[in-house]
């Protein structure tokens, strides 16, 4: 655990906390982007270049923009008047969050016990990932591609239908 790790972890946690605690929804979205960036830095710190850059490209370049557009187009950017940022069912939320955290923690602790202690660090280049995607994991890749194409066509059809209705 190096100094860089603590710095990045602090940035990520601060971003995530700000995303939950800030009042203005657009500020929350921007704070969430900071958390995304922190996660990308964590990947980069682990020498996973491809995953780190893909995280930036997809989450900061696309997901954050999508979130922001959704907020602006649905009038969600207006700050609620009646103070208080906590929802009324915060107790249930806390219970669910604690359960998820306990489950993840349990899984992580189990996996550490199951792994052999000193494995040599694998050196994975971007080329290796490409070969693996095109070779061993080609079927999942194609299925994802099909799913995304279906989603794309669906989005176009939804948009077209709306246009015809307005005529």
């Amino acid at each position, binding site marked *: 655990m190096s100094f860089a790790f603590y710095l990045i972890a602090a940035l990520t946690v601060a971003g995530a906390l700000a995303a939950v605690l800030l009042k*203005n929804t*657009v*500020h929350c979205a*921007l704070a969430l*982007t900071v958390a995304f960036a922190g996660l990308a830095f964590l990947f980069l710190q682990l020498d996973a*270049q*491809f995953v780190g*850059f*893909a995280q*930036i*490209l997809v989450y*900061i*370049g*696309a997901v*954050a*923009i999508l979130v*922001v*557009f959704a907020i*602006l187009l649905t009038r969600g950017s207006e700050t609620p008047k009646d103070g208080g940022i906590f929802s009324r069912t915060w107790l249930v939320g806390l219970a669910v969050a604690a359960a998820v955290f306990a489950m993840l923690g349990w899984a992580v602790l189990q996996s550490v016990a199951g792994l052999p202690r000193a494995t040599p660090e694998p050196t994975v*280049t*971007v*080329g290796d990932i490409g070969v693996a995607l095109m070779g061993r994991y080609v079927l999942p890749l194609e299925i994802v591609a099909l799913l995304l194409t279906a989603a794309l066509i669906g989005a176009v059809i939804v948009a077209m239908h709306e246009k015809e209705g307005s005529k």
Partner: protein
Amino acid sequence: MFETADQIFVLLKHWLVGLLPMALQPVAGVVLSVAAIVCFFPALFALTTVFERKGLGRIQNRIGPNRTGPFGILQPVADGIKSLTKEDIVPLSADGAVHFLAPVVLVVAVFMGFAVLPMGRNMVLADMDAGLLFYFAIGASTELSVFMAGWSSRNKYSLMGAMRAVAQMISYEVALLLSSVAVVMISGSLSLTKIVEAQNHYSYGLPHWYIFTPWGLAGFVMYAIATTAETNRSPFDLPEGESELVAGYHTEYSGFKFALFFLGEYLAMFSISGLGTTLFLGGWTAPFSFLTWVPSWFWFFSKLMMSIFVFIWLRGTLPRLRQDQLMNFAWKFVLPMCLLNLLVAGLWRFMGDGWLRWVICSAILVAAYVGLGWEEMRRMHIGARSYRYAE
């Protein structure tokens, strides 16, 4: 002798770093390279603004700036002093923190793009395995800063400009990525230095640049269109349309913050031209084998400045597109043509050497472009010009 001229900046850096104690040397090397980039490109930006205004003046039959210094060459200095001394106005209803952060985020993100560009032999700051991916990842985060600027200004023109800019940048980023993927398919690497090395061969004195292949030429045209849109340059400068949106997302910025936006836009132009040079125009390699004695950095910056000249030329020549034309052009023309280009690049890769792949790949591309052109022209019904009111 030629070797020294070629590596002069690298040698200079090693000499300077060598003066420091051993423990500081790795850090000093990085700091020195970063400082070189941070000093050089803004200087180039200052020169480019004056060349642009002069060039546009020429195209529009005017003189252009000619009052400050000989031939107006000191104009950028005057502009810099002006923007530094102007009052920095922040609108009362603006979102202070985001309003302040937007130009900073933009300039930082744009500067980071230069880190992976090989500007000469051995002249690259960070030679990453996934350099191209890094470049696009960083480029994607500039969209967010444009949005931040537009939204935090609390001005409907700014917000509309930002929304236009983000929609346009996302649409054309797809084309930008797809036209670059063809290069990755052929060279088999995401590392920009390896892509340049792959083009550094000569036959009959002519270089093996990717632009001199059928898929490379088509890809370069698509790349050029996408970069023009991505940097919000004319004819794709709708987000900044002065006549309709005042100035788009930076309407509410004044003084040095506006200068930062201006700087960011030009730096993005330099870095994306540099990337295009690296991908399609052979990076720092010489255009003829008998010219390889000229320093490599000279070729890189010549090609970069040629691209900038084309940007200026286009700005002086073409009128602005309409928003629906812009979107239709991106999704119904550029994107399908990029996909076709991927197919052609795949064919090129697996047909092996020989003249047959030249014929087949060229035939597919020419047939697609000519066919599409014919079909569109037939639908347009272009006849003699008719006037509704004038006659």
